[in-house]
């Protein structure tokens, strides 16, 4: 499948900024299951961009812009060819051992409620079956919320709500899987099964299964990701893999606007 | 030099100078109040507050206009930004931030001044006040000496620049307030002279002896004004402080290779002072003139910050 992606991130500031430095995780990598045919990051002001790779193996871009700046817009566009693999990843670059992904972060701590939920969901199913069961259970428990996620909401607090954003669902999966001693991580990327436009990139999870390797689980859909998903970045949690980590030198507040459009090409 | 270091050195100079000035002001006022044959009382202390532009703050703090309270307010009030205690504290903070740029001797003088306030200043009778003021003056003199013994580099130039800018402001303020206070309604300049009050001004800028050297014809207000405004021989005069400002900026321009707005402003002022005759100033309105000096000095301060990227 050929997916076309437009992802626009725009910051407006109430006072001009002297400098902006941002770390962007916005570039997908090639693997056996996805081929990046075309990819471009455009910035609407004079900026210097430098390519890097982070400790998790993600491709990152450092963006440096000199002010005064009232705002900055980063427009990402590209095309990725995907193939179906029933969620199992092949040929990804993995610099860190799976066991690293057992550690909790402040937003992915599993409290007793999450742990009980996970144990009840998986019963005594075999590892891969257990993870599918967990994925479905999360999907069924929450109505999917469409609002922009709260970037500081921890899994335990998200679990207490009736609705959950894809981000929160994915973090819940990660927290629950780790509570079952299964290495798990957060994935940021794109998916064309959401309604045409959305206000944020998509998020799902991956878990390590001994004989298979990394396997994707998308609790928003209740299924494993297929050719509809484009993986961009992985990390221990949503914050660690978010498309932009930024800092600015200047007064005032900022207003963030994000627009994502993913469409399948015939 | 780091921009932050330069800013700290400049502010260090300003705060040391301010602490020294307030110490002299308190000392002179105390002499006027206690030692003169006619105790000056409330008026003297009110004018001390007026010079430092702190009368509203003092009133707001609920202080009574007594010698003890005003002296304590100006010397050791931790809640008052302009007190010597706070000035010395800010000077020390800035000195700490640039500890590596200072000689041990210079640092020890600042730290020494700060340690004077280490034990809480409880009651201030005239004796302890004078002793404290003397100690502060001794430490600031020690600092000034230490700065003169340091390398003549950007470090000392920024400190001197800060001191000169602060000194310009302080002297202009002192003259402005005292002059108004001393001039009873309906009197023309050169009329009745309140000897003690004019002596107080001279004492505050350490110019009693200098005055006698420079002017043979006794204590006359016009001469005092002339001395404080335009006599380059007196280190605390507006003219001398302006010259020092220009010297420091020129030195910085030479070592950093950049000149700017601040240099132009300072040189313009220096040239104007050279042209100005004190008699004309008095005739045209001393108050307006001094207010202009103070405002211009504030602009210069902003220009310095821009030129050396303090922000």
């Amino acid at each position, binding site marked *: 499948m050929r997916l076309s992606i437009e992802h626009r991130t725009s910051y407006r500031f109430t006072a001009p900024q002297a400098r902006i430095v941002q770390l962007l995780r916005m570039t997908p990598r090639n693997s056996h299951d996805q081929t990046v045919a075309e990819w471009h990051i455009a910035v609407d002001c004079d900026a210097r961009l430098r390519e890097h790779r982070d400790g998790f193996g993600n491709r990152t871009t450092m963006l440096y812009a000199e002010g005064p700046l009232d705002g900055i817009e980063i427009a990402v566009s590209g095309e990725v060819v995907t193939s179906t693999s029933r969620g199992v990843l092949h040929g990804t670059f993995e610099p860190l051992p799976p066991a690293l992904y057992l550690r909790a972060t402040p937003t992915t701590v599993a409290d007793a409620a999450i742990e009980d939920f996970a144990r009840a969901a998986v019963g005594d199913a075999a590892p891969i079956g257990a993870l599918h069961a967990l994925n479905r259970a999360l999907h069924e428990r929450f109505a999917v919320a469409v609002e922009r996620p709260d970037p500081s909401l921890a899994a335990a607090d998200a679990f207490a709500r009736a609705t959950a954003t894809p981000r929160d669902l994915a973090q819940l999966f990660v927290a629950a899987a780790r509570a079952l001693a299964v290495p798990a991580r957060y994935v940021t990327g794109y998916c064309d099964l959401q309604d045409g436009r959305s206000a944020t990139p998509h998020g799902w999870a991956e878990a390590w299964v001994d004989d298979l390797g990394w396997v994707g689980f998308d609790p928003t859909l209740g299924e494993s990701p297929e050719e509809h998903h484009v993986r961009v970045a992985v990390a221990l949690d949503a914050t660690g893999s978010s498309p932009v980590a930024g800092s600015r030198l200047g007064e005032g507040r900022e207003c963030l606007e994000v627009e994502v459009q993913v469409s399948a090409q015939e | 030099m780091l921009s932050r270091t330069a800013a700290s050195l400049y502010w260090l100079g300003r705060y040391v100078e301010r602490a020294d000035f307030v110490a002299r002001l308190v000392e002179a006022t105390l002499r006027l109040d206690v030692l003169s044959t006619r105790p000056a009382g409330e008026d003297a202390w009110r004018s001390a507050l007026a010079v430092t532009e702190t009368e509203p703050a003092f009133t707001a703090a609920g202080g009574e206009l007594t010698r003890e309270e005003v002296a304590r307010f100006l010397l050791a009030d931790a809640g008052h930004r302009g007190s010597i205690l706070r000035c010395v504290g800010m000077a020390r*903070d800035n000195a700490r931030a640039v500890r590596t740029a200072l000689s041990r001797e210079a640092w020890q003088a600042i730290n020494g001044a700060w340690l004077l306030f280490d034990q809480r200043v409880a009651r201030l009778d005239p004796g302890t006040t004078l002793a404290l003021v003397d100690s502060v003056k001794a430490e600031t003199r020690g600092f000034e000496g230490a700065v003169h013994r340091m390398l003549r580099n950007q470090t000392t130039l920024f400190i001197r620049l800060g001191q000169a800018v602060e000194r310009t402001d302080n002297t202009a303020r002192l003259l402005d307030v005292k002059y108004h206070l001393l001039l009873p309604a309906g009197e023309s300049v050169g009329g009745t002279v309140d000897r003690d009050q004019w002596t107080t001004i001279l004492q505050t800028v350490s110019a009693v002896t200098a005055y006698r050297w420079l002017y043979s014809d006794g204590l006359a207000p016009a001469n005092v004004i002339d001395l404080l405004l335009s006599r380059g021989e007196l280190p605390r005069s507006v003219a001398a402080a302006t010259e020092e400002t220009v010297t420091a900026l020129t030195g910085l321009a030479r070592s950093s290779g950049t000149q700017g707005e601040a240099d132009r402003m300072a040189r313009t002022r220096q040239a104007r002072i050279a042209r100005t005759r004190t008699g004309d100033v008095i005739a045209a309105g001393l108050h307006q003139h001094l207010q202009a000096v103070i405002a211009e000095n504030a602009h210069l301060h902003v220009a310095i910050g821009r030129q050396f990227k303090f922000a």
Partner: protein
Amino acid sequence: MGIAAFDEIMGAADRDGARPELADLCRWLDETPSDELRRRQRSAEVTFRQLGITFAVYGESEASERIIPFDIVPRVFLADEWARLSEGLVQRVEAINAFLVDIYGERRILKEGVLPADLILGNPQFRPEIAGIRPPHDVWAHICGIDLVRTGPDQFYVLEDNARTPSGVSYMLENREAMVRLCPELFAKFRVAAVDSYPDMLLETMKSVAPRGSGQHPNCVLLTPGHYNSAYYEHSFLADSMGIELVEAADLVVDDDLVYMRTIAGRVKVDVIYRRVDDDFLDPLVFRPESLLGVPGLIAAYAAGNVAIINAPGNGIADDKAIYSYMPEIVRFYSGGEAKLPIVETWRCREPAALRYVLDHLDELVVKLVDGSGGYGMLVGPTASTAEIERFRAALVAEPHRYIAQPTLALSTVPTLVEQGVAPRHVDFRPFVLSGARGVQVVPGGLTRVALREGSLVVNSSQGGGTKDSFVLMPGAPAMSQTMGTQASVGMTQTLGGMSQTLGGA
């Protein structure tokens, strides 16, 4: 409890008289009146206060900056003792460095099963964010402070490694300065190795690890959290002695993966940063997104090989408590030989045999949580009540992997000036080890901390600890004839420092 401790000057408790090599020091102690010692000690402390060698006590007003008490009686290492100690330190620091190269690179030590993988991968001190980055010249632990304790003439044990931002070196230098000024006669009696070249050695180390392409004169800076930090004096002192800029995070900017400092004449490129801030506050884009502190982009510049950071980010994994008990294995793995400096014997309760031993000997051992700190979750067997011991027994059985156990050690003592006169007090020791592109070197000296309370083993400055100068004697005979040094007054008359001269003869 009375542990019969080894005294480093007076020798073993059951022997009479000083260790023969230090008889002169003992005589000096006997012949110098306590009052005179006390006067000199006060003079040193007055100097420290004037210089502002203070540390801030949190929660008190700024006026209550404290100085760390200084003790006038030095501690002395004999030349051959020091030589053996140095060998052990070099070996250990080389192993720490090799470990860091490996653990953030290939991870051979995990693949070969020498360390349990979860010990590293699950440890918050292992920073996945910087995995794969190779610091310039592959040096990670440029400055190490290795905390040691001693129980006998040649019995040294490592208590803790400090491979992040070890502090205390300014005390080593200032204490020496004070001793030379106040007790010059001691330097006539003993040939003491100089420590004042430390700033030069450090600067040399910094320059040696500059990124390739920084040119002949790499620009080095010292990054401090600011002048409110409790160790600010040390930061400014070191920057000053090395003649480099003392910068705060706000003075640095990263542009195009290069680091610059903001100066009055514009930006100036920076090649080497000796940072005295924690990893968490280095770069908000990488470590602590909610933090406003730090230099955005610094890690990118570092990853691009454009700046050296001293010590390297991520070093915390090498000096973590949980790793400590594995240091003998780590040293063996990387050096191919046995560790020359032992650790304090440690039972890892995660191992069944060790757990059995610990449970059988709870009344003799100190039991600690590996992830605890500051004395929480600690059992001191010899002084514990039966109820406490039983509580720990239950905890150990329930979660054995969280605990380690160690014997209680009879820490050595050194004569120390206390109220009643000179009396033995327990000490520890932190030598400083520098690693640059051209190898590892040990500074001949260090920081001796002393527990001023009788019988106390706690040397922390926050809990009544003080410091001493640490003499390392040079090989060969004493400097001067012994007769000259025996009379304190002879030494004193040679003193040039104002007060000692006038009061010395009294």
